[in-house]
């Protein structure tokens, strides 16, 4: 009976089968392919409100790539991505190992670690802005009372970048943590038992058992976080607005300004495509590593 069904399916022409998968194609076409093509077209035209688009070739790309403000925004973004994502991974890994080793009140602590993911970005930024207010923030006042240096983020660009990195790590740590924690729990306990019998120290067990088996999860977490972190916007926009004097601007803020403050849709679209290419370049190493792991598992 089953064989007959399969045979009938095979004998159907592609035209008959197409409607079955058409909804997926329509969805991908309408939400990814067509908008992407539209943005490519926008990026080679000059247009604004009330002004018909005119073809300008690669002029928008040249304009963006030669703009010193874009260079600064790009370096700020790369800096935040590299520092924040790797620090977040290290903290996430530490927490995952700590939780897996058995903590008292684990359920409550788990809720505490995951809570930032339930907080909206806008609320989180407003909260942090209040806590670190350079004049009246509770954390600033506490640091001052302890005669410790404060984060002078409204004046010093480096301090502002540190605060942005801390905020983005706090906001996204649950994502990295939960991936690594789930992967760590999936490692069979008998492997650790075997390692212990073979005389492995805890550090050796971590290096020879935990780390290799967490490898795929680490790569997935890094890959996603690289791509997400490259789009960082609300933390910067709501905290510093890119200031003082555009020194903390990131690429997404640059794009927003071009599109929604200056209504320069051509340069905004070109910036968007440059963002895609740069984030792919940043993540390419991890993509190759992921590909190798997938192939290795397949064999």
């Amino acid at each position, binding site marked *: 009976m089953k064989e007959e069904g399969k045979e009938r399916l095979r004998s159907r022409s592609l035209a008959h089968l197409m409607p079955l998968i058409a909804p997926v194609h329509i969805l991908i076409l309408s939400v990814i392919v067509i908008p992407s093509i539209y943005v490519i077209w926008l990026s080679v035209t000059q247009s*604004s*409100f*009330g*002004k018909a688009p005119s073809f300008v070739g690669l002029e928008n790309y040249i304009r963006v790539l030669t703009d010193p403000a874009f260079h600064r925004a790009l370096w700020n973004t790369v800096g935040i991505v590299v520092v924040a994502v790797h620090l977040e991974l290290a903290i996430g890994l530490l927490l995952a190992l700590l939780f897996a080793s058995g903590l008292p009140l684990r359920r409550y602590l788990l809720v505490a670690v995951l809570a930032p993911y339930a907080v909206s970005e806008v609320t989180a930024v407003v909260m942090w802005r209040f806590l670190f*207010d*350079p*004049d*009246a923030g509770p954390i600033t006042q506490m640091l001052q009372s302890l005669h410790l240096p404060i984060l*002078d*983020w*409204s*004046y010093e660009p480096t301090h502002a970048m540190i605060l942005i990195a801390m905020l983005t790590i706090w906001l996204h740590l649950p994502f990295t943590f939960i991936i690594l924690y789930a992967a760590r729990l999936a490692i069979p306990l008998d492997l650790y038992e075997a390692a212990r019998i073979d005389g492995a120290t805890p550090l050796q067990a971590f290096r020879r058992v935990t780390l290799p088996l967490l490898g795929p999860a680490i790569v997935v977490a890094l890959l996603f976080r690289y791509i997400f972190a490259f789009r960082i916007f609300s933390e910067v926009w709501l*905290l*510093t*607005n890119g*200031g*003082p*004097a*555009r020194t903390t601007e990131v690429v997404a803020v640059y794009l927003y*300004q071009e599109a*929604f*403050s*200056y*209504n*320069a849709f051509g340069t905004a679209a070109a910036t968007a495509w440059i963002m895609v290419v740069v984030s792919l370049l940043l993540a390419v190493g991890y993509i190759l590593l992921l590909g190798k792991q997938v192939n290795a598992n397949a064999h």
Partner: protein
Amino acid sequence: MKDRSAFTFTRRGFLGTTVGGAAALAAGPTWAAGKTLNVLSHKVHQTVLGADADDLMAAWKSANDADISFTTFDSNPLQDRLFREASLTETDYGVGYIIDNRPTSEIASLFEPLNDLTVSDPIEDFDDIAHGLVQGMTVDGNLIGIPVRHATQGLFYNEALLEEAGISAPPTTLEELVEQCNKLTFTSKSGTPVTGMILASDLALFPVMFARAFGGDFITKDFQLVPDPAAMEKGLDVLRAMFESGALPRSYATTKNDDQVTWLQQGRAAFTVLPFARYAQLNNPEQSNFPGKIKAIAFPGSATLAADKPMASIVEAWAMVIPKNAKDKALAWAYIKEVSSKRVTLGMALNGNGPVRVSSYSDPALISKNPLAEVEAMVLANARGAFPPFPEAARAQATMLEEVQLAVIGRKSVKDAVASIIERVTPMMPA
């Protein structure tokens, strides 16, 4: 054995539900008014029209069997959405609110010219509406918007803090203002650290006001860029000196417009520059620690400013426009006529709106409710926009602000910053 699930959803059923649902939605709710006018505005434009028993538009709604549905945004997102809606083939929005420094020729082409309507179906005593504001909404000979609100900037001060510091009267010159700001950078009796002045760093109007205090400007109405660089340098020198002395807070570079209101209400700052219409909010007992103690005067010019050249404050005006692609332009015009009437203009003024009609300022009700009406009318007489509209105006403003921030917080010399403003903004100027 039945091989069908208890819950079956057939193709016929699915199509029937879809068509039925669409028809029900298309028919629309039967309990609403006959017509709905969709309006794109700032929240303040809706608030000043009142609500419920105090709804200034209640009679109009009843006479036109229409309801008004507001969609509100902050200023910049509002302008973006309005222009986006007006760029579509058709829009559901009949009326939008536009700021006077936005309508370039391209933007103006998205909106209905109103010249003919003001003749065929005139607004009550149209000549009573300030001519300068009407001119600001006339682009390439077409009147595209009817002025509805102006926000004229004044100097607000906390009288209680001035008294505490032994200052008997607010400043009459910019030099006195700086001196008082320095004196008022102290810790008040209540233990609150007070800063002399609070200004947002992301709005061009503040550096422009300081430049104008010395007779300078950013971009004039006839598109002269920094016509007097020395005056601009003097204005920025004052801001920089205030920052260095602590009379401007260290968080100056990230201070926003809302911070100005809260700092003044909480007694954390002694002076600020805000529209006169903020008077009620600043003295609201539910929000302010100093109700009745926050007062306003005209922003003073420098003592060096020539007597025949009065200090020109900054005024920002809003107007109502009808997108060319709007569905029901007749209803939109009826709304604009009503909102522009003498009765509604005065009603909105009593609710805190900057009235665009000259006659409103002489109304006894407004004079008794708004103690700033007289000074506001006087300031308005010499006030003008921060800069005129042109395609790259937003980019020019951002460039100027970047250089001003660098100069004020001491990362660049004032002279270099002014030179950079001229160098960087020149290519953005209209040909």
